[in-house]
């Protein structure tokens, strides 16, 4: 059981860190660009909100499988397939939780507005400098929200991890898939404990999110 908890938390942490790094430039572009294509990109990045997790899981599984051209590119590095591996789980989770990082970051960057960035420009700061010293600190609430949401959403995913990971004990089995296999073998007692634990975790996370947003909200105005 401890191993399952460790895998679950490790997956959520790695996914959160990587996804925040990847979503930041995308959200910045979506917030600042005047390109007509940005709403198309915005819609694509929001697809995981409405797609069945099995669809995402299926595509990622195919892309990471031994027959995929993507994996053929990795053959020289000795990698044949990432399906049913922890790395595969991380990749699937990144797609699955993408909108939960992009939306709050985009909203936060849009809330920064032109004025502070213009001010920084007149104070001798180039575009990258302005992003680091003005946009990031002013958008910090978005980063906190995105981090909490991605972490919680990754803990809560089921369809994607089952399809890509196969719930292999000790490698790709997480709490949500453990409940499923416990119920299949009629071990309701342990299933109850995990289910209650995940419910409590979800409640505490959402409460924490609301409190953090309220606290940071006053500072920003």
């Amino acid at each position, binding site marked *: 059981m401890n191993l399952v908890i460790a895998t679950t938390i490790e997956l959520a942490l790695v996914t959160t860190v990587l996804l925040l790094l990847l979503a930041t430039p995308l959200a910045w572009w979506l917030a600042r660009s005047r390109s007509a294509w940005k709403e198309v990109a915005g819609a694509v990045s929001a697809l995981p909100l409405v797609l069945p997790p099995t669809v995402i899981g299926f595509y990622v599984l195919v892309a990471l499988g031994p027959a995929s051209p993507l994996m053929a590119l990795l053959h020289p590095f000795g990698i044949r397939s990432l399906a049913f591996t922890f790395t595969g789980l991380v990749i699937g989770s990144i797609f699955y939780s993408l909108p939960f990082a992009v939306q709050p970051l985009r909203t936060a960057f849009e809330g920064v507005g032109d004025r502070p960035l213009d001010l920084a420009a007149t104070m001798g*700061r180039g575009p990258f400098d302005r992003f680091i010293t003005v946009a990031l600190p002013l958008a910090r609430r978005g980063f906190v929200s995105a981090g909490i949401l991605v972490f919680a959403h990754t803990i809560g995913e089921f369809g994607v991890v089952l399809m890509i990971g196969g719930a292999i004990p000790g490698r790709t089995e997480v709490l949500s898939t453990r409940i499923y296999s416990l119920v299949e073998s009629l071990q309701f007692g342990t299933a109850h404990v995990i289910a209650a634990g995940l419910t409590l975790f979800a409640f505490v996370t959402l409460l924490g999110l609301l409190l953090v947003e309220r606290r940071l909200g006053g*500072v*920003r105005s």
Partner: protein
Amino acid sequence: MIDAVFHGRLGRDFTLDVAFAVPSSGVTALLGESGSGKTSVLRAIAGLDRRAGALTIADEVWQGAGVFVPPHYRRVGYVPQGDGLLAHLTVGGNLDYAARRAGAGGFDRGDIVARTGLAPLLDRKPATLSGGEAQRASVARALLGQPRLLLMDEPLSALDTAARGSMLDLLDALFADAGIPVFYVTHDADEAARLAARTIRLDRGRVVAV
């Protein structure tokens, strides 16, 4: 001399079409009603908006054929209308932020802080300042960037009558000692007469009188 030419369609029925040349010292007021293009001219001088045209400050070409110096290389001190501070930094943090990329210049931090009365406010966040305090901090911030040119957009507009009087005195004194050219946007002819050596009057995007 400062030579400026800006033109372009800014809105459905607003076209900017200005040209002026003024000495590169002293205060030049940009006077006009709201919607006359004053702020557009100021932003074009700062390089924050890219308009067709040309701009030369003394011997430096900031905009011309194939040349557009981006705003962060122009060394302008810009005091926008309303909120002119970075909200995530304290007043002192704002001054340090401006000073960090500043070149050599004549504005001394201690002197500016004393003259703008900011000493007791240095640890405060902008959101906790009154309109007058924020405006003085914004002016100090602009000066400590050691600007080549000072741009001010209606710096008195957010102030009550009492604060206006003391702000006018402060600006008058600062401009007199600054030794750099100032463009001062206002809709108030008395204010322009009080502070400026010359006035450019704008109406619907055009220069109507100098």
